């Protein structure tokens, strides 16, 4: 067992993938000698040479389009988008080609490629460096969308993503890059990809979270426990494929559910989760499924981001509205009256 930061775990995953499979290539902006702006590709060019890990010209559609062609030609590119908002130039390539090539060609071509995207906020970044863009990708049929919350998951999910026969958008929560954790020994972990995990068991309500929101949900559960409320925390790990089974089993057990996401709430992944939970767990629910999310605003300037980001208090306030007494949801009623 080794302790690593998430960035180091991702680096180890790329390194091991490059070592094990010569078809794997890493490219993007500043990923070569610099090692990427978050150092996720640190040392890879040195170890594997410029052929296997290289800097591209500055053009994101070009990076993704090049990866499409190289994957068609038998390689397994794992490319880096420097930041969430700077992946947008590549969106046409992602939505029209990466997501669709297998389907368009009736399975005759496939695209085993990974697009790594550092995403979300909480690091005091200036505008265009903090977008939560996961819903765009999750909404696009044909893409798998993955987001780790621990270094161990970061390592294994990235290994799984690179080995996957389909394209994977691998969303890395920036603020967790420096979080530390233990990595399990090198023998391949069974499962994980496509499977949510119960991070903390509880009785009274389920918090469903993913990526950057998982540690916040865990802190909220810790704090609630001190008040005698037992919260279960489910970490999705992969948004697509979505693990209905684990989420549903948890909510049927606890009877209450709060979905937590950092992204703006409207039409987000959390809305999808809330809908799925109430469709499947209606008879087990003692209260409506509630959501905790960022506000529906462009990502705020750094000094104000604390006001936007869902924190422990926002989660606990929402848990309080889960009708543990027999009173209805007063907050909603109050809004309707005023």
């Amino acid at each position, binding site marked *: 067992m080794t302790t690593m930061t998430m960035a180091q775990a991702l680096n180890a995953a790329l390194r091991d993938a490059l070592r094990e499979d010569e078809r794997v290539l890493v490219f993007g902006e500043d990923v070569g000698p610099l090692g990427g702006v978050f150092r996720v590709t640190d040392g890879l060019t040195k170890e594997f040479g410029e*052929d296997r890990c290289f800097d*591209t*010209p500055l*053009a994101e*559609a*070009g990076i993704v*389009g*090049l*990866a*499409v*062609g*190289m*994957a*068609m*030609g*038998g*390689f397994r590119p794992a490319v880096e988008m420097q930041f969430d908002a700077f992946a947008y*130039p590549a969106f*046409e*390539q992602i939505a*029209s*080609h990466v997501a*669709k*090539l*297998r*389907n*368009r*060609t*009736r*399975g*005759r*071509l*496939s695209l085993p490629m990974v697009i790594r995207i550092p995403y979300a906020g909480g690091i005091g970044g200036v505008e265009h460096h903090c977008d939560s863009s996961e819903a765009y990708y999750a909404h696009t*049929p*044909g893409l*798998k969308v993955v987001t780790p919350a621990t270094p161990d998951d970061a390592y294994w999910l990235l290994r799984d993503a690179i080995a996957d*026969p*389909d394209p994977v958008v691998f969303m890395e929560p920036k603020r967790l890059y420096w979080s530390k954790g233990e990595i399990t020994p090198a023998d391949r972990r069974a499962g994980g990809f*496509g499977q949510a995990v119960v991070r903390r068991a509880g009785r009274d309500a389920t918090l469903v979270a993913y990526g950057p929101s998982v540690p916040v949900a865990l802190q909220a559960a810790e704090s609630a426990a001190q008040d005698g409320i037992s919260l279960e925390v489910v970490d999705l790990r992969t948004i*697509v*494929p*979505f693990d*209905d*089974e684990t989420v549903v089993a948890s909510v049927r057990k606890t009877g209450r559910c709060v979905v937590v996401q950092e992204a703006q709430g409207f039409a987000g992944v959390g809305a999808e989760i809330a809908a799925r939970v109430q469709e499947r767990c209606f008879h087990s629910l003692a209260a409506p499924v509630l959501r905790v999310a960022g506000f529906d605003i462009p990502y705020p300037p750094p000094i104000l981001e604390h006001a936007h980001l869902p924190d422990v208090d926002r989660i606990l306030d929402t848990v309080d509205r889960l009708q543990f007494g027999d009173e209805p949801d007063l907050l909603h009623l109050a809004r309707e009256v005023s």
Partner: protein
Amino acid sequence: MSVRTSRQAVDGLLPSPEPVRFIAEDGTAVPAPAGYPAPADEQLLEAYRRMVLGRRFDRQATALTKQGRLAVYPSSRGQEACQIAGVLALREDDWLFPTYRDCVALVSRGMDPVEVLTLLRGGWHCGYDPAATRVAPQCTPLATQTVHAVGMAEALRRKGEDGVVMAFIGDGGTSEGDFHEALNYAAVLHAPVVFFVQNNKYAISVPLARQTAAPALAYKGIGYGIPSEQVDGNDLVAVLSVLTEAVRRARSGGGPFLVEAHTYRMDAHTNADDATRYRETEEVERWESADPLARLETYLRGRGLLDDEAVAAAHSAAEEYAARLRDEMNADPETDPFELFDHVFAEPTPQLREQRALLAAELTAPED
């Protein structure tokens, strides 16, 4: 520090000031252009037969739209010299990245015409096997295929294969960002790829003058360090010669090349378009007299390579081909609604399995 660009380096990247030409519009030979060998006579005869076939195919496809057998068809009538030369310049193991307008090129490569038309018939998005044919799916998002072509070229190079990739693109498509990213990537990677612009003067209704202020599209190469050439796109001999040279160069490690062919889209953008809204009949008529097929025929006859018999044989082969195509297209394509779920991922997700079952229930429910 002083910066100086060598005149020689610049000149080496520029296209000829006038499009390369072997045949005048009246079908007579012009003095041979420097640096471009004339293709072998046998290859020109083969090109002629393929042009006859391609034109007949194109006419049949347009007819099929009227019979409701094709959802839409973008004709390439008038562009046959480009379509056929592009294919003849490539080996079978080279890759071709076509657009929606390049059906004639694909059938000319020997692909099953029904498979080529599957996209436009609406049976599936791509009817052929790209891996087996080494032809990427016909691409509609403009210019996006040019970047894939660079990736494929880079893949071939890395695998030690001496294959070349040719990316087809229209004049309008050269305004898209992806085209510029593709040129730049190709140059930086020194990838064995040929960009082939069929400048047919229109992007749907928008004329070339609104598309660019460049002296010619071929000049877009120099900014990226890519050598380029412009060619008379209605002169089969010229297009074939220039493309063959570009492919030879790429294959022997010379890097990417850009070719602009000046041609003309004789028909509307597609059967659904009304070209009289944006161009004059006189303009179209002027281009009729530059017809690439008539031009090649006159040229070959003039050189004693083609006689009435050979012309008749080419036409009757084309008629047979068209009749077979019509019959095959008259049968309804076989489709399976459940296939909609089969290729989204290698393994369908649990959600896709549920939705498949839902569709099955809908399709088997008794009608009320």
